Structures are given as C-alpha cells and as structure tokens.
C-alpha cells in the first residue's frame, strides 16, 4: 500500500431502523459456532477417523448412515448452520474489503445466491434421499436394500 | 479603516471570522470560560493544540476546596494558607474569592461528570497537600479533591466533554500571534483601548485568520520552557503572555517562578506533591528526613518554595545522593504497593518508565523542576486585563496560569492552580458575556494581518544561519544555572548578558522548513522569540527585587524585606524593544498588595 489513505467520508449514513442484522448476526455466529463444533467434529470423526476413514466413504456408507433419521437431522442441521454461518462471515469480509458499491453488492448477492441454492439442494437431498434407488447395482447400495426390495 | 468584514470572507488570502467572544487557549482556563460563554454568546475557542493536549491534563495531585468532606475545614483557613503560602504577596481579596468559590468550582466539576475519588460515604474524597493546614497552621488538613493522580487529566477531559456537549466552536491547531487593539471613545471624552480581535496562523494550511470579536479572553498557560529542567510541556512557551507584552501591556510579578520540589531527576517530569500528601518522605544521601530540620511542624508538606530550597541546600552542603551527589530521594516504599497502584498509579509508572526505578521497593531520585509562573498578565478579580495599576482594558480578559490576579503571590500552593483556572476561568467567561451584551465591535485596523504576515514571512524566507535549537538550549541551560532556585545579582547579571546575546543571534535565525503546511519549524522559531522576550522580563524583574520571598530566593539578600518590597512588580515594554540593554526598553513599577485580614508575619511551618 503506497497510496495515502483516503479521508473518512464526512457524514455517517443514517442508521437504518428495523431489525438489527449486525447484532443478530454477531449472536448467530457464536450460537451456530458452538453447535457446529459438535456437529462438524462428530461428522469428521465418523467419516474420516473411525473405521477405514475416507476410504470407507461411498454411496453405500452415506446411504447406510442416512437410513437413520438421526444422521439426516444431524447433517441437515450442519448444512443450514454452516452455510448461514459461512455466508454471514463472508458478508462481513466483503463489507470490510470491497469498498466499491457495485462490487460490494455483487459479491454479496453472489454469496447469498450460493448459500440459498446450496441450502435448497442440500435440504432436498437429505430429506428425499432414497438409499435404495431402483435400478442401481446392488453392490453399491447398503446391505439393507436387499431386505427391503424383497 | 476597514468597516465590518463579513464572517467567512477571504480577502488577500486572509480568512475573516466574527465572534462575540474569542477565547485564546483551550486548557482548563479557556474551556471553563467557554462553558460559561458558549451558551450565551457567539464564542470561538482558538488553540494551538487539540484541547485535550493542553498541559492542564498533566496536573496530578488535586484541586483544593474546603468541602469538609473528611475533616473539619473552612474557606477562611484556606484563604489564610493561600496568603501565607504566597509569602504575603497575595492580594487577599482575590484569595478570599478563590477560597470561597472553590467549593462551587469543585461541585460544578462533579456535576459536569468529573469522576473524583470517593469517600466510603460516596462523597468527594480529599487528601493532604503542601501548605494546606487546619486552623491557621496547626496541622495538615485534607483539602485537595482528587482523582487518583490524574486530577488535571480528569478536569481537562470533563471540560472538553462539556464543550462537546455545548457544541463550542473550536479552532484547533490555530496559533494566535497577535492581539488587535483599537482606540475608541471612552465614557468621558477620553480615548480607550479595546480589543478588536486576534490574528491566528492555521498550522495545517499555513494561512492567516483574523477573528474579529467584542471580547478576547487569554488563557494560554505558562512559559516553563524558559528553563531546561521543567515539568512543563514543550508547547508551554508563553505565547499569550508574550503577545500581551509586545502589545505594551504590563506584566506582573514575573520574577516569581515556582520550582516544584519533586521532579524526576534529570528529566523534570513531575511527581505530584500528593505523594507526600499520602505520606512519602524526602531523604538525603544518608537517609535522613531532612525536612524535619527546615519545617519542624509540617515537614515534607511545607510549601514548595521552602522544600525546593531545602533540597538544593542539602545538595550544596554535600548531602546529595548519587555519584555526583546531586539529587535527593523521594521515599514512597513504606506506602505499600496498594496505595501506590491505586492512588498514585501514574507517577509510579513514570518512575518505572523513565528512570527504571520502582517506587514500591526503592526511593526515587528527585530534584526541583521549573513548574509554575506565578506572574503574568495582571487582572482584576473579574479577570479584566489591566493596562496599569488600575485601568482596565474593557473587553480584554485573562485567566489561568497566564494571568496574575494575584492569588498566588510569590509562591503558589499546590492544588490552587487547578482551582484558579476554574474559578477565574468561569469569572472571565461570565464577565465577557455581560460585556458583549452591550459592547459594539471595535473596527478592525486596515490590513489587520499584515504584522503577523511580515513576521512569518521574514522568518520563513530568512537566510539566517543560527539554529533555533541551539539558541533555545543555551537559553534554557543558562536560565537553569543562573535564575533557578537560588539567584544572586551576579548570576542574574550573567544570564542578562546571555539573553542579550541570544536575542541578537535570534535575528539571524534559520528556518529550514520553507513549506506552508504544518510548518512546525517556523512555529518553533516564533515560540523561541516569545521565550527570549519573557526570559528577559523574568530576569530583569528578578534583579530588581533585592529580597527573598516565596519562589524568588536571592542568596545575596536572603531575608524578606517587607519595608521595601511588599508590593507587586509591574513591568512595561517601552521604547525600542530591540535595544541591547533591557533597562532601555523595560520599565519597572510597583503595584500595592491588597491586604485585608492577614498582616504579614514571618513564615514558619
């Protein structure tokens, strides 16, 4: 940075009334953070540490997990909490560094879009996931599929 | 003669402003005045520093007021102590006002939000301080209201906060360089001097501003920088007093400068008398509590002049500590870490930071440090500036350390200055408001900024070779050597010579920075000019007072001489200010001391 820092804009824009996003955002980051610690570490341990770790992860593995609604709720929660947490974090960062109004706007819209789309897709997946899609090769599916399909 | 110039006009590069009241200086005195004036008149405060940088913020120990919050006390005792502390050169009517209005002054500050230390009952706490006694000298009394050892900081912040609240107009880093005085028809056909405004130099841009106003209040603080070892800030160069002097208005009691006993050795940074108020003790090399010999009753809490002199005496008689036997110790070790950390945190840190000495476990090397100008711009009890012993300059006021009311006489008591700036700051503001209600603007002279412009351009473009710093250093060292705690005719004569030589050299001074914006080099050159002028007056007045009294100790005249010198010195600038012999341009006169109740007596503590 060789340039001289620009003066602060003289007048503060009027405070917006209504919901205080900054305060709730701040609180949300902390609340979600605490929950995420449990969710993410649980997730990591189950998927990467226990058993054969990453090598064991495949369709069958996930499907097996998701057969239990407990893990569906777990992953669903993680999805929502982490995406909103991350999205809000990214918004803060954009606000810090993107001073140009249009760039700032664009980036925030992109973040929002990414978060919304992924939450929708992800939620759809965890909710309507079919562990035993018909027509799939049986060896890729979890063991219990054979019992169900009969 | 130019008529009214509209507020905001820019003519020939000079900016014009118009206010009812202009206050020069944003220390405690200036801001206290602003709080009175702001709501009632269009007021501007012009300061060469951001207000919170003013040296009032350095004051530590406390502010006196006979609140009787912790023990019996009353304002009459306070008056007596002030008079006696000032070695009877105090104007007693003024001292009475000071002591009486002290109570309101403290309460005002508390009500404005000042966070004083509290007693267990939640009242303002008070501590002992040098020279403050109960019942006319019987014992030390707890009279100083304080906030840890940052009382001045809290006062400055509180006053600034209230100025923010009131929306006072500040012109920060504007350096006032001239006072404009016009002649108007007085009441009975005479002509009268009245201020028409001031001229200021804007540091950020290098441009000149003329502030036309009906009333001007000077609150520009002291001039300790004429000495080397001083508790005063680099910026305390006596500009305000110097401007008044150059306008050929008189200065009073300039020979009386206070040397505070406990300056950090070698540095002059102050360790508050509050330390001794809390029980700290002065010791010589052998660990003896030597103040017992000089002031048997109140010992270390004797007034500053006595303590400072005793310390120098110890050193001169070979009982000083250190490799050069040139300092004494302030011993706080028995106070304990608790008291030091809670009641004297800042000075504890100063000793640690600057001397590497931890007061909790070892005594701190100290020596007297130039601290406070008792003299200054003579004013009435209403803060009106005098042009001789009795005539006021209507519309011109002075308050704070730059003024001489005189409530401090020849030696100020600790905590009486923070009081002074509040009591007389308030009075100056009030009276200025009353004055501007009926007064008219005095027309500005033609080209009001011309004088200042010439001076600045002369300095900026000079091809001189003399270093500002070299001249200043020489002045400060010689003042320390010859006009400090002990003075004789010989030393004063020597420093008179020095000053003369330096004034000659100053004409050939070099300003290296030729730029317009933030030219602090130019500023230092101007400040040096004021320092030289004031040092000359100080020394000239000191030579003339052939007695010892308060802060003025003449080794060749060690006794107080009430018969000949129970009067204030008034110094006037006459003739050619550049003439070589000060006697050719300084005329001294006397002004009687106001004595009401307390007849001069020998001072014993």
């Amino acid at each position: 940075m060789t340039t001289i820092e620009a003066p602060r804009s003289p007048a503060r824009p009027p405070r917006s009334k209504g919901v205080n996003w900054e305060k709730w955002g701040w609180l949300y980051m902390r609340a979600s953070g605490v929950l995420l610690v449990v969710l993410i570490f649980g997730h990591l341990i189950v998927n990467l540490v226990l058993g054969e770790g990453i090598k064991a992860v495949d369709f069958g593995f996930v499907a097996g997990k998701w057969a239990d609604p407990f893990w569906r709720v777990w992953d669903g929660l993680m999805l929502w909490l982490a995406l909103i947490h991350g999205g809000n974090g990214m918004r803060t960062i954009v606000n810090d560094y993107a001073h140009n109004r249009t760039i700032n706007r664009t980036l925030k819209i992109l973040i929002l879009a990414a978060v919304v789309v992924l939450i929708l897709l992800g939620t759809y997946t965890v909710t309507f996931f079919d562990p035993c899609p018909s027509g799939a090769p049986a060896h890729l599916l979890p063991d219990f599929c054979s019992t169900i399909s009969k | 003669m130019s008529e009214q110039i509209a507020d905001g006009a820019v003519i020939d590069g000079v900016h014009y402003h118009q206010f009812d009241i202009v206050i020069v200086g944003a220390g405690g005195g200036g801001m206290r005045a602003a709080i009175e004036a702001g709501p009632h008149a269009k007021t501007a405060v012009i300061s060469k520093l951001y207000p919170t940088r003013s040296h009032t913020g350095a004051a530590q120990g406390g502010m006196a007021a006979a609140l009787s919050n912790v023990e019996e006390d009353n304002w009459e005792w306070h008056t007596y102590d002030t008079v006696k502390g000032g070695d009877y050169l105090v104007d007693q009517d003024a001292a009475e006002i000071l002591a009486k209005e002290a109570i309101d002054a403290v309460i005002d500050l508390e009500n404005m939000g000042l966070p004083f230390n509290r007693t267990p009952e939640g009242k303002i706490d008070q501590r002992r301080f040098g020279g403050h006694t109960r019942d006319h000298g019987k014992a030390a009394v707890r009279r100083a209201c304080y906030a840890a050892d940052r009382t001045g900081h809290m006062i400055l912040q509180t006053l600034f906060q209230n100025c923010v609240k009131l929306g006072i107009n500040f012109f920060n880093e504007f350096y006032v360089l001239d006072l404009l005085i016009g002649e108007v028809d007085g009441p009975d056909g005479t002509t009268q001097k009245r201020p028409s405004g001031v001229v200021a130099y804007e540091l950020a841009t290098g441009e000149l501003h003329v502030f036309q106003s009906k009333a001007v209040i000077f609150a520009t603080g002291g001039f300790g920088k004429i000495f080397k070892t001083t508790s005063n800030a680099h910026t305390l160069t006596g500009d305000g007093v110097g401007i008044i002097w150059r306008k050929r208005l008189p200065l009073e009691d300039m020979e009386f400068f206070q040397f505070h006993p406990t300056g950090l050795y070698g540095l002059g940074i102050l360790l508050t008398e509050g330390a001794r108020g809390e029980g700290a003790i002065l010791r010589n090399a052998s660990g003896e509590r030597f103040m017992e010999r000089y002031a048997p009753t109140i010992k270390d809490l004797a007034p500053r002049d006595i303590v400072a002199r005793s310390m120098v005496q110890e050193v001169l008689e070979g009982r000083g500590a250190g490799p050069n036997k040139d300092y004494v110790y302030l011993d706080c070790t028995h106070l304990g870490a608790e008291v030091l950390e809670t009641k004297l945190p800042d000075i504890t840190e100063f000793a640690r930071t600057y001397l590497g000495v931890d007061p909790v476990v070892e005594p701190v090397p100290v020596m007297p440090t130039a601290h406070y100008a008792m003299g200054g711009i003579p004013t009435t009890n209403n803060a009106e500036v005098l042009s001789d012993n009795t005539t006021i300059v209507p519309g011109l006021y002075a308050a704070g350390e730059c003024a001489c009311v005189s409530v401090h006489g020849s030696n100020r008591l600790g905590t009486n200055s923070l009081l002074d700036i509040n009591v007389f700051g308030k009075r100056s503001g009030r009276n200025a408001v009353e004055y501007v209600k009926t007064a008219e603007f005095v027309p500005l002279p033609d080209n009001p900024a011309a004088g200042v412009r010439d001076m600045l351009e002369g300095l900026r473009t000079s091809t001189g070779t003399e270093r500002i710093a070299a001249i200043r250093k020489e002045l400060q060292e010689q003042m320390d050597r010859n006009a400090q705690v002990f003075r004789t005719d010989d030393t004063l004569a020597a420093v008179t010579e020095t000053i003369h030589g330096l004034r000659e050299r100053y004409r050939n001074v070099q300003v290296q920075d030729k730029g317009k914006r933030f030219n602090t080099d130019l500023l230092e050159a101007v400040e040096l000019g004021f320092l030289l002028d004031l040092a000359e007056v100080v020394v000239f007045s000191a030579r003339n007072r052939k007695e010892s009294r308060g802060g003025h100790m003449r080794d060749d005249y060690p006794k107080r001489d009430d018969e000949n010198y129970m009067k204030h010195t008034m110094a006037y600038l006459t003739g050619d200010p550049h003439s070589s012999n000060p006697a050719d341009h300084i005329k001294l006169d006397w002004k009687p001391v106001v004595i009401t109740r307390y007849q001069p007596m020998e001072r014993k503590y």
Partner: protein
Amino acid sequence: MSTAVADAPAEGQASDAPEAIKSFVVTLIIRRFDPDVDTEPHWQDFDVEVYPTDRVLDALHKIKWDQDGSLTFRRSCAHGVCGSDAMRINGRNRLACKTLIKDLDVQKPIYVEAIKGLPLEKDLVVDMEPFFASYREVQPFLQANSTPPEGKERIQSVAERARFDDTTKCILCAACTSSCPVFWTDGQYFGPAAIVNAHRFIFDSRDDASQVRLDILNDKEGVWRCRTTFNCTDACPRGIQVTQAIAEVKQAIMRGHA
C-alpha cells in the same frame, strides 16, 4: 540501588555528561511525506547519537533540531499524558515519548511512520478530525436527569466509581483506533477509542443516557464490527483494557441495559 539507571542522562544532558555513560548511534528510518512536493511518502534514514534512556521522541527532536528542521511531528507533554505523539514505531503503535530506545532492538534500524487509517498530512502528522468526529458521536459527556442537592455533589459509592475507572484514563491519542485492522479497512468503524469513551459514561452510575449510547453503538459501524483482534489493547499507552471494555458494551447491548 537505583543509581545505575539514575545517572544516565536525560534529554539535553548529553553534552556535560560524564564519559562513563555510553552513547551510541542508531539509525531511524522515517516515512516522510511533504504534501507540497511529494505524491507518495518515502523513507529516509537518519543516524542519531542517543543514550539508552532516551525516548524515541528525543531522537526525533535531535533530528529536527540538529539535522533536518522540516521533520514534522506532534508532541507536547513528553511524558505520555497528552496523547499528541502516537506513531508506528517498528510496526507497532506507541507514543514516541513513552518508548525508550533501550527497549527497542538497537542493532537494527528503528522504523518510524505515521499511524495508519487516518489521512496523512505530513511526515508523522495525520488528520485527527475523523477520529474526533467518531468520539463526538457517542455523546461523551455526562447526561444526568437527577439534580443533586444545591451546592452538593452527587453521591457515588467507591465501587460505582471503580466500575468505569479504567476507561477514564483515555487521553484520546488514537493509538488504539489506528491499530485496528477493522478501522483500516474503510475508516467507517467507530473505532475502539470512541467505544472506550462511551463505556466511560455507560457505566457511570450518575449517567442516565446509557441507553442512547448503547443504541448508537448497536449500529452497522458500531461494536459488532470489532473482531477482538486486541491490537487496540496492546497499543494503548494508558494500559486500558480496551477489548474488555468493548466486550462489556456488547454485553450491555444484549442485556438491554448498562
């Protein structure tokens, strides 16, 4: 005892100091900028003879007074109480008058530059106006509805007084605000100093406008922007626990009262 340190000379004593005290030469590398001629700041080296007990301010003075009079910086009290001379010394915000040469690594040059995030005016001088503007916005003055008895102080217990003691020490030097990475980003954040001065009143038992100040700081540019980087606390020359104060204000906003 104390003599080893005490006999080292202070400012200006150099010339008549006994030989025993060793002075040495350090290099100061100062980031300079003269608005009249420069378009960009540049670095300049100065070699200065100093004593270990000298302050960086003394070294700057020696440069200004003996070498280059155009070097520009603010200073007044020279002992850390007026807040004039906050600057970035070796990459950290400090007061030049409270930084002793011996506490720096004198084998290497000392880098000195203006504080960051406020508009640079000249050499080490920045425009303080934006800083004071933020300060003014938090209503830094006592607002009490109750009237104390005529001619009497308001009562405040020792404990109530202690509640806000830490934040009364602020000298408005801007070392904190100009060390805050969030403030650097766009200068819109109120900054730690303004919050400290709001804290001073929010927790003063005599004040009745805490709610107003909490509302002001419960803003897009208010306390929530603080990312607890602690630069402010590390930089504060008065040892104020700045981040702690900010945390207390956040808590108060969440609670809904001081």
